[in-house]
């Protein structure tokens, strides 16, 4: 999005007319609209208009949405019938837009009857598609009293169940809280009683635009485009005042006073983002020892040194430091968000590193927590947390220590030897399916051909005779690095196999694990399928330069280049494995 993004500036996103016009101009102005996002909307009410708002929010977020509104209220059939429009589209995002009336014919319908029908539909949608699925809460009625067994009370219980289901199935399911939109805009602006009773269309544009904005954000997360790192300044951002001048006792952070209570509240929000898998980093002009001392010992400081995956506390230029953080964390600058109270720092960063999103601490400090909440909602929603995410900060920290150790070694091999690297390569196990699907989405750098797979697609390869998924689980003396390597092999006829996917998480770069992985799968292909030739291709993207020469280095012959795609072949009889004596293979 370069030329087209201008079109979206200042557009009133609640007006159908403004949004329709902006979408039209954006589509006319630019040839490319970013990665494609196919969305299928299944609704048991009339959702027309949502497609326009979703197109708008997706384009503004750098996605090219293709939105199909399914036929009204026949989703069971569409899910079950393999020839349906739904399956023809094969969407990345499936939106279930459900109103309560379809699930509870009477206000008295018991909660269990409603949740049982919802669960049946949710599970069917998860089984029959490989899409991420967005579901909603039901809009609560106006209730002037609630005795617990009222209609409003029962809807509240159903909504809690929906939240719980999404939480328990967060690898596939996302929640759009319809009550949040109604609370933000007011019932009057959101609910269209006239069209509800005339055409079963419950919502006005003010509601549809908020709903569409959330769906577009979910789309970005599903495509692995959500922001990943929150970089924070210290003075005036994590606490009030200047640590170097006011001293540890002088900074404002006490929850009992203003403005200490503001910074305390902000730290709590930041901590929560860290728990949800956002990587936290510091970039501040201070004495590093002072900052560490404050984080460790200030009685009201909630953020501890261990909460940060990386720190740049010195007197250097912040743009240079953030670029350095990006290298250290092996992430693109476009996955960074930066918060600072100094307009100069924010402005200069915008000028020097426009890929980084910036947030300026508001002058009216009481608005700061709200600004952080909006920032979190805009850039880090939805939080997709897997067990891997939760342990990620710890991993990055261990690696930071590793980098410090590395400084003490003169040559790379002796450093790598000191790491005691191990890799356990095996066919994928059922419990690893979610992580592998996630890696196909999130891995941009060492990925020879980025193809995003859903869990269902990965799972279907587990028992296949002609397709095999191998994973590598890596560890070193700093701890477990987790499942970081994936290779998907396809058998092609009697004598050939082809690499369909070969990727490696950036946290294990520069250890030559990719060659160990390749060597292992070559052995497996020979043993299992008795093939004598392996094919592979490298499809260049904006980010996968780290994998560009992998096949050449591994001994593959370049056969041809077509439309930028490099096609390789390896005669296995001539294959010479690379040996790395510092990598220990764990045999099962």
């Amino acid at each position, binding site marked *: 999005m370069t030329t087209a993004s201008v079109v979206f500036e200042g557009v009133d996103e609640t007006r159908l007319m403004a949004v329709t016009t902006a979408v039209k101009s954006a589509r006319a102005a630019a040839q490319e609209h970013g990665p494609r996002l196919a969305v299928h909307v299944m609704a048991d009410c009339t959702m*027309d208009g949502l497609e326009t708002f979703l197109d708008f929010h997706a384009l503004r977020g750098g996605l090219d949405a293709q939105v199909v509104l399914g036929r009204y209220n026949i989703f069971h059939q569409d899910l079950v019938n393999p020839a349906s429009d739904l399956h023809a589209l094969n969407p990345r995002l499936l939106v279930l837009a459900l109103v309560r009336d379809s699930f509870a014919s009477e206000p008295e319908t018991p909660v269990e009857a409603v949740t049982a029908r919802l669960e049946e539909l949710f599970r069917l949608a998860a089984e029959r598609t490989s899409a991420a699925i967005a579901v909603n809460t039901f809009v609560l009625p106006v209730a002037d009293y609630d005795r617990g067994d009222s209609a409003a009370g029962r809807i509240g219980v159903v909504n809690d169940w929906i939240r719980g289901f999404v939480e328990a199935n967060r690898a596939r399911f996302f929640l759009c809280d319809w009550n949040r939109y109604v609370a933000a805009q007011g019932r009057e602006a959101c609910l269209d009683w*006239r069209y509800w009773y005339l055409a079963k269309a419950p919502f006005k544009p003010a509601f549809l635009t908020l709903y569409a904005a959330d769906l577009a954000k979910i789309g970005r997360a599903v495509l692995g485009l959500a922001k990943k790192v929150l970089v924070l300044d210290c003075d005036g951002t994590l606490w009030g005042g200047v640590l170097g001048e006011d001293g540890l006792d002088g900074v404002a952070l006490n929850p009992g006073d203003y403005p200490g209570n503001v910074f305390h509240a902000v730290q709590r929000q930041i901590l929560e983002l860290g728990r949800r898998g956002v990587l936290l980093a510091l970039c501040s002009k201070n004495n590093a020892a002072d900052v560490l001392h404050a984080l460790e010992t200030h009685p009201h400081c909630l953020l501890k040194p261990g909460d940060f995956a990386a720190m740049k506390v010195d007197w250097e230029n912040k743009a240079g430091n953030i670029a350095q953080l990006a290298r250290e964390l092996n992430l693109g600058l476009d996955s960074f968000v930066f918060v600072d109270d100094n307009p100069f720092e924010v402005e200069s960063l915008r000028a020097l590193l426009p890929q980084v999103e910036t947030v300026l601490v508001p002058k009216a400090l009481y608005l700061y927590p709200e600004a952080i909440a909006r920032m979190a909602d805009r850039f880090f929603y939805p939080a997709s947390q897997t067990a891997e995410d939760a342990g990620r900060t710890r991993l990055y920290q261990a690696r930071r220590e590793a980098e410090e150790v590395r400084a003490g070694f003169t040559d790379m091999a002796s450093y790598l030897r000191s790491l005691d690297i191990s890799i356990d390569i095996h066919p994928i196990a059922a419990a690893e399916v979610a992580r592998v699907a996630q890696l196909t989405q999130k891995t941009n750098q060492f990925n020879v051909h980025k193809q995003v797979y859903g869990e269902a697609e990965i799972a279907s390869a587990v028992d296949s005779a002609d397709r095999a998924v191998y994973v590598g689980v890596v560890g070193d003396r700093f701890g477990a690095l987790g499942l970081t390597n994936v290779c998907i092999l396809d058998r092609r006829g009697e004598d050939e196999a082809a690499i369909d996917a070969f990727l490696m998480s950036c946290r294990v770069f520069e250890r030559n694990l990719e060659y160990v992985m390749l060597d292992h799968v070559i052995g497996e292909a020979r043993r299992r399928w008795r093939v004598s030739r392996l094919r592979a291709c490298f499809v260049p993207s904006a980010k996968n330069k780290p994998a560009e020469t992998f096949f050449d280095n591994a001994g593959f012959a370049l056969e041809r280049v077509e439309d930028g795609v490099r096609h390789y072949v390896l005669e296995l009889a001539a294959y010479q494995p690379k040996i790395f004596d510092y990598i220990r293979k764990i045999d099962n």
Partner: protein
Amino acid sequence: MDTITIHNTIIEVMAAILDVSRDQIGDDASMDTIKAWDSLKHMKLVMTLEQEFGIEFDDQEVVDLLSLRLIELAVRAKVPA
């Protein structure tokens, strides 16, 4: 708002929402002459007209807004001159 502005705004809204060019919307434009103008588009059209003019139509009016002329009459009656 004068009648010319009202007329032009309605044409603009119809062209955008029904996705047709302005010159396809003649004075006699109606649900019968514009193919894209079906009942779902009609709903979006009504919502957009309401937003653009800051007015609201009731249930009967919604059903009656079947042509450019009828829309113009209904909008003029609601928008202060």
